[in-house]
């Protein structure tokens, strides 16, 4: 089994302007995805995220000061709207699962790696 984080990029207004019927197709697609994952591997975690305009950025400025700013307000057509953390046999099964998600999404599949020398407590 390999572990993948599946990042979902979407256009917020697609969702905001979606009719109840369209929203139901999104829910159905997520159900199909979860069903596939349960059948072929394991669902370790997932979340839907607030839009980028609700984000807060902590970054190290001059010296070692950690500054806090509002947003990133990235001027991108798409933004990350959620993720799934799953275990599946290989990339092909991850691709098959990703294809089940709503077609309006752009989906990025990232393998989870173990960082050499770091053992979390």
């Amino acid at each position, binding site marked *: 089994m390999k572990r*993948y984080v599946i990042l979902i990029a979407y256009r917020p207004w697609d969702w905001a302007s979606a009719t109840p019927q369209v929203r139901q197709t999104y829910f159905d697609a997520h159900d199909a995805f979860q069903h596939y994952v349960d059948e072929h591997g394991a669902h370790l975690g997932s979340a839907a995220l607030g839009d980028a305009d609700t984000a807060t950025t902590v970054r190290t400025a001059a010296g070692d000061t950690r500054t806090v700013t509002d947003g990133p307000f990235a001027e991108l057509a798409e933004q990350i709207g959620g993720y799934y953390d799953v275990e599946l046999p*290989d*990339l*092909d099964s*991850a691709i098959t699962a990703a294809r089940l998600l709503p077609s309006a999404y752009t989906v990025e599949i990232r*393998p989870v*790696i173990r960082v050499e020398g770091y053992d979390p407590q």
Partner: protein
Amino acid sequence: MTPDEALVATVRGEWGRLVALLLAQFRRLDLVEDALADAVEAGARTWRRDGVPDRPAAWLLTAARRRVLDRLRAETMAARKEPLLVVDAEASAARGSARADPGDLVDDDVLRLVLMCCHPALAPDVASALALRLVVGVPTADIARLFLVPEPTMAARLTRGKRKIVTAGIPFGVPDATALPERLGVVAQVAYLAFTAGYAPGSGPDLLRADLSGEAVRLVRVTLALRPDEPVLQALLALLLLQHSRRDARVDPDGRLVLLPDQDRTRWHLDEVSEALDLLERMPAAVTSPLAESYRLQAYVAAEHATAITAAETRWDRICRHYDALVALNPSPAVRLAAAVALAERDGPRAGLDALDELDAALPHSHRLPAVRGELLARAGEPAAAVEALDLAIARCGNDVERDHLSRRRAELVAGRE
């Protein structure tokens, strides 16, 4: 055969099978290729001393297996973890060598290897380099020369590809029957990219690396042998053989480009032409894959050239029909440019020039478009406009030999006017 020749022949013929067998057993792409390279080195020493073994490929496989096991043992010692890993590997090594007739299984493993290297999650240039290296055993230096990059760049590209396969979990496996044709289409595109790399050089004196394009033909042959009824592979092999059959006639003894009508047709490889025609004959009439149909139509065009006794006898009427079908399938600017050239041959330069007019917006940087226009203007009796078009083509052309050819043509036109 000397021991060295025997080793070269074994590596050339068996590399993909050996990589596939080792991968099937150990699933460690990071170890397999190095282990095999070490085994070949050991073979070079031992075979010179003791003679060529009875079964050279089996000798290399055993030597490579030992090296993988050594590495796995060393890893275990270093980590003092997972002692079961080596036991597992040794147990499966014992099973592997005990396998009585691995014929079919080996073929499956080679197909797994081809599909792994040509996975759509790998960039096409990475995939084609990996397939040439791992499936047909082309040395990294030769792949670098084929793709016109320095050897360290190609070595880094191969390393990146292998890391992606391992880290992203690209499977060493065959998808189910519904997904396989699409995946074989990706294999075909990857092989075609490698083939054209040898014929479409960027710049410099190394105009044709056709010997290296032959390695891409070998990749298609290996894959077609595993899936002999796959239309996309049949059509692609036919197309490649027809194009490749002209390699010896494309450059004159001074290294200058020779265009199709001026080529010495006795230097074409007729055995390859007839093999290609057989392949086209065997293909089913109806093909569902647009990619397969596109390769087939291009092969039909190439077959018309290959079977014309002289350039003057070329059946341009039939070529135009094939191009019409091709444009309907894929109206890309490059296809339309080729179709315009064929139209000019059938209906005269004016018809070709009219067809070119629609292409300027789509091909703003192409040197081929003004080169073709210059040639057609010259034939239409407009040398001044022809020279102007050739000037633009020369300015845009990045390849020494092609630019040299355009400059000579320009000089002829200027001389003709005086």
